[in-house]
């Protein structure tokens, strides 16, 4: 096999050159001993704490504001109002207040810290399989394949399933891609900045209980602070009462403004639960009768009670992303298929794409070293765009690999069958030489938003350095070293991955 040959050649080349070279990179294929947990290489834009137990969105500022507001208001209530009320009225008041406060806090933390129902991204083999099916279904392949949708009939209603370009899957019904977290979430409701997380299938009930209990708490505090002020003002006059307990004013103000929004939100979500809709669907009017006479919600169970029970007391599915699991390094992957569409990451049989980031980092170091000393004479007329160095080699594996994945995604990913098309061979060789397993990462970053980033990280193949021993590998394969401009003329290719097409268009415009 082609790869087997070059691999064995690489190994023998290493043994020859290792005495001469002083590069820090000895054997990139040696397995790293410290095992990484899966959350450390999670492709979405989430933050993890406590070694993967806690999962939140990237922007958490507003969540801290929510927390501070709740803690401060309740703290003031318990410190200044409760002693008076407990004495004057009944000690049950602080007890109920305490229970409500703990419940609110518990549900808030549960909503914010749990996995909302993130769908893991497709493995390279799955994505390749889907691509194959889509191409077969489409027939002709243009530069811009039509938007990929699949229609499914659910309980009599036709539902369109959309293909997610970032996650490389057909989204299940009711799932949606959150652009803030860059994940597909099952039964996506909305992304709540107050809670610092998406609200989806797994944490919707906690979110609902949070806003419900918070509305009770807000009304409770509002009512009893007013009672407190009134009782005091009976004794010593209104202004004196305010002077004696200044905190009450703050509490009343906070509660007054919160009540409207929170009670309103609770009411809205109660309606959504009883009709088994998500915020997304309601806003779009997906199941509204205005769209058509026969339009109805196929997910509804029929009556309000069942809908509520199903949403709040139904079974809680487990997290699909297994944050705290260890990354397996020996999952076999398929050899690239011969139909021209392939995944680079699938060429190695031993490494899973998760732990390839180590090699991506090594490869990146290579690239950076070589970029400092130009290796080959440049023959293309296109200006060279050097990679910007990754901020720190290890922390962003996806982005690190993007620097190498740049030229690779822009190049046809198929096998270079016509030997006369030298550009394809040189590109294939370049990519073949580099121990790139992180190409599978690039598929995670094929989201359109990533394009501006990818654009600046492209390398011409000439800039791609040859790690020691790589260059001689090229000659037995019959490639010439005088590499031409290694970029494809888009017009000469028929079947290209959509991202590579976009990449090419960007490159040609430089």
């Amino acid at each position, binding site marked *: 096999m082609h790869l087997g040959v070059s691999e064995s050649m690489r190994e023998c080349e290493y043994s020859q050159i290792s005495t001469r070279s002083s590069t820090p990179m000895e054997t990139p294929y040696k397995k790293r001993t410290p095992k990484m947990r899966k959350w450390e290489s999670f492709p979405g834009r989430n933050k993890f704490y406590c070694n993967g137990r806690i999962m939140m969105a990237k922007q958490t500022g507003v969540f801290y504001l929510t927390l501070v507001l709740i803690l401060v208001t309740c703290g003031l209530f318990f410190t200044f109002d409760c002693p008076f009320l407990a004495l004057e009225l009944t000690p049950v008041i602080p007890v109920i207040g305490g229970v409500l406060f703990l419940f609110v806090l518990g549900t808030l933390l549960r909503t914010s810290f749990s996995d909302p129902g993130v769908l893991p991204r497709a493995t390279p083999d799955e994505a390749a399989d889907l691509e194959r099916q889509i191409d077969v279904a489409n027939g002709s392949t243009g530069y811009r394949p039509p938007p990929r949708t699949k229609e499914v009939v659910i*309980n009599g209603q036709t539902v369109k399933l959309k293909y997610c370009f970032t996650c490389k899957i057909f989204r299940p019904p009711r799932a949606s891609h959150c652009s803030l977290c860059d994940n597909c979430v099952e039964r996506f409701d909305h992304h709540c900045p107050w809670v610092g997380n998406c609200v989806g299938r797994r944490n919707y009930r906690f979110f609902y209980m949070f806003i419900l209990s918070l509305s009770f708490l807000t009304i409770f505090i509002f009512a009893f602070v007013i009672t407190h002020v009134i009782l005091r003002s009976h004794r010593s006059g209104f202004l004196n009462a305010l002077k004696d307990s200044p905190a009450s004013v703050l509490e009343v103000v906070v509660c007054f403004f919160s009540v409207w929004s929170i009670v309103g939100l609770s009411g809205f979500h109660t309606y959504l639960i009883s009709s088994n809709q998500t915020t997304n669907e309601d806003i779009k009017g997906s199941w509204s009768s205005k769209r058509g006479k026969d339009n109805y919600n196929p997910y509804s169970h029929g009556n309000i009670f069942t809908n509520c029970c199903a949403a709040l007391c139904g079974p809680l599915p487990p997290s699909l992303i297994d944050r705290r699991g260890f990354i397996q390094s020996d999952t076999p992957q398929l050899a690239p298929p011969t139909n021209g569409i392939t995944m680079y990451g699938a060429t190695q049989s031993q490494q899973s794409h998760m732990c390839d980031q180590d090699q991506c980092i090594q490869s990146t170091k290579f690239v950076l070293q070589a970029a400092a000393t130009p290796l080959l004479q440049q023959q293309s007329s296109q200006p060279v765009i050097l990679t910007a160095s990754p901020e720190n080699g290890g922390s962003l594996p996806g982005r690190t690999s993007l620097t190498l994945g740049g030229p690779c995604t822009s190049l046809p990913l198929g096998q270079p069958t016509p030997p006369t098309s030298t550009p394809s061979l040189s590109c294939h060789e370049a990519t073949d030489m580099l121990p790139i397993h992180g190409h599978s990462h690039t598929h995670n970053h094929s989201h359109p938003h990533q394009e501006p980033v990818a654009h600046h990280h492209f390398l011409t193949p000439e800039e791609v350095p040859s790690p020691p021993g790589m260059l001689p590998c090229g000659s037995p394969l019959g490639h010439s070293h005088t590499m031409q401009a290694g970029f494809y003329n888009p017009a000469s290719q028929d079947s290209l991955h959509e991202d590579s097409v976009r990449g090419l268009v960007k490159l040609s415009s430089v």
Partner: protein
Amino acid sequence: MHSVQHHGQQPRRPDLPHCCQPLSPFHNLQELRHSASLANKVFIQRDYSEGTTCRFQTKFPSELESRIERTLFEDTVKTLNNYYAEAEKIGGQSYLEGCLACSTAYLIFLCMETRYEKVLKKIAKYIQEQNEKIYAPRGLLITDPIERGMRVIEISIYEDRGSSDSSSGSSSSS
């Protein structure tokens, strides 16, 4: 490094058709992975015709036609579908569990596992058993859907390398 062992000819199994004779005696799944090479993967997609509950399509993929009988495959998928339906069933027991959990502020899940998790364990055991008894002797391997985000059932098709490339047989398992 796992050395390739050839245990000699596997005796013919009269109960299986000619096309489905076991390729080689795979005593365990590890051996399957190391002494055969991965040829192809088939993905059984989800069936959404009944809503968002977890169900997989029972359509028999063409790549498996020569490897396994249709009925065995369909049985496996139908059993898996039944397990998932049981896990996601909304009824008396799930309500009880939900209310109990809510009243204890979900702290009860620190000691107890949810019904869904219990069923998932049963599924994992079932898949392993199916692999050992039915799929591995035919050079196939089912991956638990939970490892693929419940999107697909991944069936890996292995080709027995046999004696033709025993010399290079160790190269991919290094």
